[in-house]
């Protein structure tokens, strides 16, 4: 299935906390003038600037892996097998988070994408791995969580998603097609035309990329 074509500016937000209730504010709203304070999503301007800033930061961090809503990260327990027993784990690189994929990353032969709806589960997986609640497979140097997701760990503790529910594997052509869709905000015609001369990105690459794009910024 390919995504429905949209205009080149059909998806303006960057997903970093700007997805509130969409109500534009006006100067003077909620400024103690006696009128009811304006609410922007969960940001209540009537609770003061500091409170509003904290709420904004919380919302911005929530868009990042390991953000404000992340489960409390257990401390390193040397009894946990594998690298989680030696180092504090860190969330996966942004290149794996669908909402943070950009056209700038080189496409690998295989690319694991974390769908946005799995983001919170990945945070929990990392906490579970750190706490020793995941199975360590020394043969593949990876952890498998109860959810069935598999992860490797880089030397600085950054987790590398391998496969499992909520992860999508894209080959190089499909990943390039996804990047073109992101570049053109889901406009399939524009995205396809932008890579038309590259024989390694045939039109069928946009089928799976389009399915993944349906989850973008969700």
């Amino acid at each position: 299935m390919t995504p429905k074509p949209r205009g080149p500016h059909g998806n303006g937000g960057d997903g970093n906390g700007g997805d509130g209730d969409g109500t534009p504010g006006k100067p003077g709203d909620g400024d103690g003038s006696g009128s009811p304070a304006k609410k922007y999503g969960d940001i209540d301007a009537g609770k003061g600037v500091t409170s509003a800033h904290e709420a904004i930061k919380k919302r911005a961090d929530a868009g990042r892996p390991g953000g404000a809503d992340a489960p409390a990260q257990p401390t390193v327990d040397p009894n946990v097998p594998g690298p989680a027993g030696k180092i504090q784990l860190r969330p996966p690189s942004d290149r794996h988070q669908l909402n943070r994929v950009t056209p700038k990353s080189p496409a690998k032969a295989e690319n694991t994408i974390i769908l946005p709806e799995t983001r919170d589960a990945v945070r929990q997986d990392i906490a579970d791995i750190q706490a020793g609640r995941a199975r360590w497979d020394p043969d593949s140097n990876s952890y498998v969580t109860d959810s069935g997701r598999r992860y490797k760990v880089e030397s600085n503790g950054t987790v590398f998603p391998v496969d499992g529910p909520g992860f999508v594997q894209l080959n190089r052509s499909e990943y390039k097609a996804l990047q073109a869709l992101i570049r053109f905000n889901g406009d399939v015609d524009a995205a396809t035309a932008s890579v038309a001369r590259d024989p390694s990105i045939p039109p069928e690459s946009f089928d799976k990329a389009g399915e993944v794009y349906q989850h973008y910024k969700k």
Partner: protein
Amino acid sequence: MLSYSFLLDRLPAPAELHGAVAEVFGVSPAGVYVGAMYEDAGGPPATVSCTYLDLEGGEFRWRFDLGADDTVTGPAEPEAAAALCRRFGLRALLPTDDSDEWWRLITADEDRRVAVDLDELNEDRYVLA
């Protein structure tokens, strides 16, 4: 169908790239397309496409993609990168599939695994650790 994607520390002049790509892949220069990534105005697929994107920072600031149709059977990605590195005195950084940290550095003289700074990577900057 060949599909390559790696990074270069410097971008040669497109006209020079055009000739070099034709030579490396053994195809007619008329079948080679060289241009900025995502700025293709459309048209029939080239025999070999070579596109580039400025990452605007980092030690390896050029994303460099090569794509070839089924009439082209080689060279493989590391050999193609090495040929361009020798020709233009470049350094190339090739991704590995099972790690974001470990990459393959290819120059005119060497080919080895290297680690990149993962914090910089999140900003789309490729810097050796």
